[in-house]
Each structure stands twice: as structure tokens, then as C-alpha cells.
């Protein structure tokens, strides 16, 4: 096929704006699959993705389209992850394309991730085709959204397509526009091979399947290739494309998008963003500078039953085969036993990993409060990085603490500005910028839409921030964030002591002026959830040796079976047996017996 007849594009959108539905419609319209064969949504194949309405892993589908000019085109549709946690993967996907369809929901307009994705696409010199989707919905406001696109993104109204991916209305013209506006790929099949990996997954039979875009040269079965970041060598076991099921082909050439089966054992060896070239006579310069995505959020993952540790290890190893951005190292806690300190791209990534571990591997987990990586300069000049509060040095040993900050962008109807600004300031946010989107006169009852830009410590986003933002804006506000760097912070470690014993899993890093409030809340929660013991139990929150909050659980006084006669000895003994069984399920903090549920309740506390 001539390169001139190829188009590589992706669809970018804020979450739930209809990206996957549009992909399905394009697959159907080009006859790649029949309507009745398309499952729920072809591009979201993981069960979890479908439930959460997001796309976690990018995939690529080849479509053949007979255009109005009589020519048949090869359209490679590359799917992108739709969540900010995976923006690194989105950016790699964009490099594999010459154009993108920007989908905007006619009922919602421009949202935070619409902007983030648009800027990313522009940085990568992609041709953008803006479309307003869901015009069939009763609440849709295509005119207002069109005006927003024109004033915020700078497109001409005539550039924008209106459609309903669900009903198919307005979709056929998009195919023509893709061919007309998006340029064919450049690159020479005769030059040495350069191909960009934009996704990979592990297959038990073929090893790692790498999804790639060939920039120059060609790849055929049996070729011996090299990954440029780590010089891993491999032999191509199979080459092909997806339509949407895998179709083996004889070769992929410059401009093509497809896959190769590598036989590699783990996706960690074959990372998104890496460049592939031939083992002999290859290039020396990669397509783009490669750097693996950095985990930003950390949490300890333990099994509720200590003896299940080995299953957790197996499960995380397996998950990592398909999720190279998950980092983990063994750690142990005096109370939780053996587990892993895991690094995630963000909170959603953490949630997905936890859910997959519990669902696909049937594990019952304890996940500690999520935290960030701190850089600490000690008074002796030593610099250390810490992602577990338990490892924090003593206050007097600390010269300087630095923590990651993010720039966040929130788009909200103006009536929620006050509530959101209050939340942002409670969350240590620093105001940067505020702008109104569009000049449309007919503002709704919630007011004109505004973009707020703040900077804040990533630490403050990790617990209830997102939920709070959604509830204080009645679900209207949308959020995007990006890491901006480390800044010095005034922080202390708050310890929680149960019966004078510090519980490492409860420790958290907070500003000193919040120590009293947070300490009080934790101690109160513990008092509520820890049952009374045979002795009185002091609960304390402390910064160093300074106690900032204290409550006592008084000793239990009465646990007695009043009656025990001949007729009920067996029944009463069974009650005691039940009591004994219950004790076995307790976690011990020193001499204090704590039900597992109580432990989780406290960990959940923000």
C-alpha cells in the first residue's frame, strides 16, 4: 500500500466524552466489523476499563476506508488512555500519529483534560479535527460548545464537526475529513529501521507484544532487533496489525502502525516510548528521548492474612508483566507483616492496581494511606529520598524537606468558584491564574465556565481532594494536573501510638499546624473502632516527643454469661468457641487486639 494512502490518527477526549463510542462507530462504518459483532466497546477490552469508563491501555486498529474519491485508504486508529494518570502514555501515543480527532461533549463543553490533551497534541504538531459529540442528547448545547472551541482553542466554526457517535449521525463526514486534513506519514522504507513503541502487553504464548509505529525502514518476521534504551535484543516472532483481532502480515513498513511479537518475558524490558532498530546496521539516534514514567504516589500493600504474602508476591509480579509503570519493592511492618511499597502514576492507577489484585487474584488487601516521595537533607549533609513515613528521620536530624508539587487546572461553572477556592486553600493550594472560557452570552444558571490554575503539594491531592472537588461543584468541575518539581516544605511526621506503641502504618507527613487537628481526628477514630480491652489503652498522636492529642479507651468491665445450667452448657461453650475464633482474626498492636476492619477504617481517614 502506498504511504500516501495511509493515515495515522488517534482520538483524544476528556473522560466520558465518547471516545470509545466514536472508535466503535468508525470500526463499524468502515466495515472492519459488523455492528452486531461489536461488543460493548471494542477498544476497551479490560473489564475494569469498561466499568470505569476509561481506557487504560492504548491499542491500535487498522481500518480500510473507500473514500468518496474512489481510493481505498488505510486508517490506523490508535486509542489513547483517557485519564491524567496516564498522560505519559498519551504523549507516546501522539508521537505515533499525524493527527487527532478531538472529541468534546455537547452537554459539557471543554473540560480540564480536553485542554491538557489538546496542548499535548499541539506540542507534537498533530493536526486536530475538533468534533462536538452527543448532539442527540436533550441537554446538549452545541452552539455554546462551538463558541467555546472557537474562543478558547482558536478554531474556525467551519472546522468543527457536529455528531452523535452513538446514533452515527454526522460520523461519515469525519472519515472524509480525516483523509483530507491529516497528512500521510513521512519516512522512508529504504532507510535503516526506526520504530516507536507506544504500548506493550504480555501474552503467555508469544511473550511481550509491542505495539509500534514504524518511522523508517521495515520489519518482517525473523528480523533481529534491538531496543535502544537498554540494548535488549529480540527476534521478531510475528508481525501484524489489528483489525481489531490480530492479523499476521508479512511486514510493516515506514508509516505503518502494527505489532510485533518479541518473545520477551516482561513488559519492563520493552517500555512505552522506546525506539526499536535493527541489530545490525541500525540507527544510532532514537526517535524521541526515552525516560520511563516516574511513579508519583506510593502506598504499602499487604495481605490481611500474613500467610497470603506469597500469593501477593506472585500476583504483583504477574501484574507487572503488563504494567511497567507499577514499581514495587518488599517492605515489612511490625504490625502489617510482609508486603510491598508500591509506586503508582497516580491515585487512579493505585485504585486500578488494588482492584485488579483483589479481583483477578482473589486477595484480601490492606492498603496504607497513599503518600509521595520526599527528599530530605539531613543535618549531616546526607540527602535521602523517602516514600514511607515510617522511614522518616528524627526531627532534629532534618535540615530540609522537599516534596513534589503539581500545577492543577480546574474547569468549573462560575457559581462553584467560591467553594472550590476554599477547598484549594484548605489543601495548601497557591492561586496562580483564573480565566473565563468563551464570551458566550447565554450563560446557564450555574454561570459562565472558568478555568482556575493553582499550584499545590501533590501530598494534598492524595486523600479526599478529588472527591471534595466533585462534591463541592456538584460534579461539574473537572481536573487536570501535572508535576512541576520539588519544593521545600515545612513538614513533620505525626505518629500514632496505641498503648504507647507507635503504629507505623498510621504515621503521616503533614504541616505542623495541622498536627493537632489530624491527630485529634485519628485518635477519635481509633477510640471509636478499637474494642475495649482487659486494660485501659491510651491513644496518642505525637510529633516527635510532643503529644498533640490523647484519648483513653477504658478497660472492659463486663463479659460474662449470666446463666449456665445443664440445659445450655453446649450452647454456651459454642459461644465461647466463637469468641475464641474471633480473637484469631484480630491484628495485634502490642497487647491490643484490633479487628482488621478497624484498622482499615483508620487507614481510610484522610
Amino acid at each position, binding site marked *: 500500500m502506498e504511504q500516501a494512502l495511509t493515515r495515522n490518527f488517534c482520538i483524544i477526549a476528556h473522560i466520558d466524552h465518547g471516545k470509545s463510542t466514536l472508535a466503535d462507530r468508525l470500526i463499524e462504518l468502515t466495515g472492519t466489523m459488523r455492528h452486531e459483532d461489536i461488543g460493548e466497546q471494542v477498544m476497551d477490552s479490560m473489564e475494569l476499563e469498561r466499568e470505569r469508563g476509561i481506557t487504560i491501555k492504548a491499542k491500535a486498529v487498522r481500518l480500510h476506508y473507500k473514500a468518496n474519491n474512489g481510493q481505498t485508504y488505510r486508517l490506523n486508529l490508535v486509542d489513547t488512555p483517557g485519564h491524567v494518570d496516564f498522560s505519559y502514555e498519551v504523549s507516546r501515543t501522539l508521537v505515533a500519529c499525524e493527527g487527532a480527532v478531538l472529541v468534546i461533549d455537547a452537554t459539557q463543553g471543554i473540560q480540564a483534560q480536553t485542554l491538557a490533551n489538546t496542548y499535548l497534541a499541539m506540542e507534537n504538531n498533530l493536526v486536530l479535527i475538533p468534533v462536538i459529540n452527543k448532539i442527540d442528547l436533550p441537554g446538549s448545547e452545541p452552539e455554546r460548545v462551538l463558541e467555546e472551541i472557537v474562543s478558547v482553542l482558536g478554531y474556525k466554526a467551519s472546522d468543527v464537526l457536529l455528531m452523535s457517535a452513538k446514533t452515527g449521525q454526522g460520523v461519515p463526514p469525519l472519515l472524509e475529513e480525516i483523509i483530507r486534513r491529516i497528512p500521510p506519514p513521512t519516512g522512508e522504507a529504504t532507510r535503516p529501521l526506526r520504530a516507536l513503541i507506544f504500548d506493550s502487553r504480555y501474552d503467555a504464548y508469544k511473550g511481550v507484544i509491542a505495539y509500534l509505529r514504524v518511522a523508517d525502514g521495515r520489519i518482517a518476521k525473523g528480523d533481529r532487533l534491538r531496543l535502544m534504551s537498554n540494548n535488549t535484543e529480540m527476534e521478531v516472532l510475528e508481525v501484524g496489525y489489528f483489525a481489531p483481532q490480530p492479523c499476521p502480515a508479512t511486514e510493516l513498513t515506514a508509516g505503518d502502525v502494527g505489532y510485533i511479537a518479541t518473545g520477551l518475558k516482561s513488559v519492563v524490558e520493552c517500555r512505552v516510548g522506546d525506539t526499536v532498530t535493527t541489530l545490525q546496521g541500525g540507527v544510532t539516534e532514537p526517535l524521541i528521548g526515552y525516560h520511563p514514567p516516574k511513579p508519583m504516589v506510593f502506598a504499602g500493600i499487604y495481605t490481611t492474612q500474613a500467610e497470603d504474602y506469597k500469593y501477593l508476591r506472585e500476583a504483583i509480579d504477574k501484574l507487572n508483566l503488563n504494567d511497567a509503570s507499577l514499581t514495587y519493592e518488599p517492605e515489612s511492618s511490625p504490625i502489617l507483616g510482609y508486603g510491598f511499597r508500591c509506586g503508582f502514576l497516580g491515585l487512579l492507577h493505585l485504585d486500578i492496581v488494588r482492584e485488579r489484585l483483589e479481583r483477578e487474584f482473589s486477595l484480601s488487601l490492606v492498603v496504607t494511606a497513599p503518600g509521595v516521595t520526599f527528599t530530605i537533607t539531613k543535618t549531616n549533609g546526607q540527602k535521602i529520598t523517602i516514600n514511607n513515613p515510617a522511614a522518616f528521620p528524627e526531627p532534629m536530624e532534618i535540615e530540609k524537606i522537599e516534596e513534589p508539587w503539581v500545577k492543577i487546572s480546574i474547569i468549573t461553572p462560575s457559581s462553584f468558584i467560591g467553594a472550590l477556592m476554599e477547598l484549594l486553600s484548605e489543601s495548601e493550594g497557591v492561586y496562580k491564574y483564573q480565566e473565563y472560557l468563551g464570551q458566550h452570552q447565554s450563560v446557564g444558571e450555574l454561570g459562565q465556565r472558568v478555568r482556575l490554575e493553582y499550584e499545590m503539594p501533590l501530598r494534598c491531592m492524595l486523600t479526599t481532594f478529588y472527591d471534595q472537588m466533585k462534591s463541592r461543584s456538584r460534579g461539574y468541575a473537572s481536573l487536570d494536573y501535572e508535576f512541576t518539581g520539588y519544593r521545600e516544605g515545612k513538614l513533620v511526621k505525626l505518629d500514632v501510638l496505641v498503648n504507647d506503641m507507635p503504629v507505623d502504618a498510621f504515621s503521616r507527613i503533614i504541616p505542623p499546624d495541622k498536627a493537632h487537628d489530624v491527630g485529634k481526628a485519628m485518635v477519635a477514630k481509633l477510640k471509636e473502632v478499637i474494642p475495649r480491652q*482487659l486494660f485501659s489503652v491510651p491513644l496518642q498522636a505525637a510529633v516527635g516527643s510532643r503529644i498533640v492529642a490523647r484519648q483513653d479507651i477504658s478497660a*472492659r468491665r*463486663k*463479659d*460474662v454469661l449470666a446463666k*449456665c445450667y445443664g440445659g445450655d452448657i453446649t450452647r454456651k461453650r459454642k459461644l465461647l*468457641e466463637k469468641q475464641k475464633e474471633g480473637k484469631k482474626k484480630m491484628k495485634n498492636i502490642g497487647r491490643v487486639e484490633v479487628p482488621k476492619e478497624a484498622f482499615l477504617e483508620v487507614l481510610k481517614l484522610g
Partner: protein
Amino acid sequence: MLPVKDIGDLLSEISTLYIIDEAAEITMEANPGTIDEAYLTAVRKLGVNRLSLGVQSLNDRELALLGRIHTAAEARDAVCFARGSGFDNLSLDFIYGLPGQTLTDWEHSVDDALEIAPEHLSLYALTLEEDTPMWTAITEGFLPGIDPDIAADMYELAEDRLAAHGYSHYEISNWALPGRECRHNLTYWRNLPYIGAGVAAHSCMDGHRFANTKDLDKYLGYFSGKKSSLLELDEEINPELELAESVILGLRLGEGINADDIKSRFGIDILAHYRRQVEEMAAAGLLEQTDRHLKLTRRGRLLSNEVFWRFLPG
């Protein structure tokens, strides 16, 4: 109540099968409002020599809360009938720890009970069972919940008050004047064999604890040959379990247990066998050991479940 004639038939039937000790304790249980002096006089004559009255409370509001059919006045009448018909071994049952009951309420009840001067008293803390009307009322907020600390105060108040009046606290929930401990019930707590006759009756002997069906039709069906078994429960009590039960039941007694007695019965020295449990519970102040003797402390009686489950096998 069972007609006097039936009680007479029962007792004479037993005496044809067994030799009844002259000093045997023969107890009858009755609720106030169901008996009069004539009835009690008649059964006393038949040989019943101990009467246990389910008084529960001498406060009408509490009796109503408990769903009892009798009033406090009827309870006092029942006591008069008992004394008038010649019962000199009288036991009264009381319940405490009721929703809304104060320590002062209970103090009055205990004083009222002492004024009656029964030979024996059983004081039971209310145990709230799930799905009972009271449980529902508490769960739905119509009644205040039961405060275990107040119930503990009530127990200790009764302990002190009854001790001052010469009652010995011979079992967790039972008090008696000297020599008036219930001999029948002591059999259970000493984990000795017993036999129960009739529908729903429990027995324990030869390494088994078993119970007759609660269903009267089934029970009668057995005797007319229609049913092959009348047992509803038949539990094998292996020696390990029997030992544990002997310790648990024995510790309910004020005198506690003697390691030598247990050793002569089971051949096991419990002080060595349960050393870890004994040390732990002694350290927690729930159990006290004097030479070869183990008993619950005052605090241990109120927390006896914490002691008992530790002695269960497995």
C-alpha cells in the same frame, strides 16, 4: 401449672424406680401469678421441699418492660403463699441491667429482696438476644441501650450488699445462705453426670451430652413407636473437652477448682497443662491461684468469658 395429681404421680413413679434419699432436694419452679397457697401446700405435702420463684423484679415498670404477666404485688403474694405453705427453702430470680434501669433502682430492688429474706437468690444480668422485641426496640431507638459498665456496677453492688447479709456468692449468678446452695445446680458446675426426663430435657453421662426433642408430638411419637429417636442433640464429650468444661464450669463456682480434684479425675495436672493461660489471666488480675487452688477474682467474675475461652481446646 402442672396439676397436683400429676406431680404426685411423677414423684411416686420415681420412687418406685429409684430409692430417694430422705434429705433429697426436690425443687419446683414457678412464676408469681400462676400459683396460690392451696396449690403450694399440696405440693409441699407431696415432698417438694424447695421452691424457686421467677420474681425477676419488684418494680412494676420493669416487669412490664420484661413482658411479665405478674405485678410486684403478685410477686410478694407468691412469697407469702410459699412461706404460708411451709416452704423454708425459697429461691428468687431477679434480672438487672435493664434498659433505663439506674443503679439506684437496682439498689432498691436488692434491698427489697433482702427484706423478703429468701434462702437463695439468682441474679442475672439481662442478655439481649438478637431479634427479640427488646432488641428491636433498642435498635430502633425506642429504648435506651444497655450500658455494660452500669450492669457491672449493679453486680458489684449486689455482691457487697448480699455478702453483708450473710449470703455466700457460690456461683457467678447465685447466692445462698449457708447450706442452702442449690444441690441440683452444683452438679452442673462440678461437671458430674445428670439425667433429665421429659420433653426437651438434657442429660449428661458416659461421655455424651444429649437432649430430648423440644417437640412434644415427636417426643410422644417415640413412645408409641412412631419415631426411632427422641434425641435432638447427642454430643460426644471427649476427655480433652470434658477437662476443659470441668475447668470452665468449676471456675464459675465461688470456691473455684482444686487441681488435685481434677488430677484424680482426669490424671492431668491443670496447673502445668494450662500454665500459660493461668499465668496470663493471673497477670491480668482475673484469676487467682492459692497453692493448688484456682478461682476467679472479683473482676474476673465479671470478665469470666475472657478467662473461659482461653481454656477451650484447639
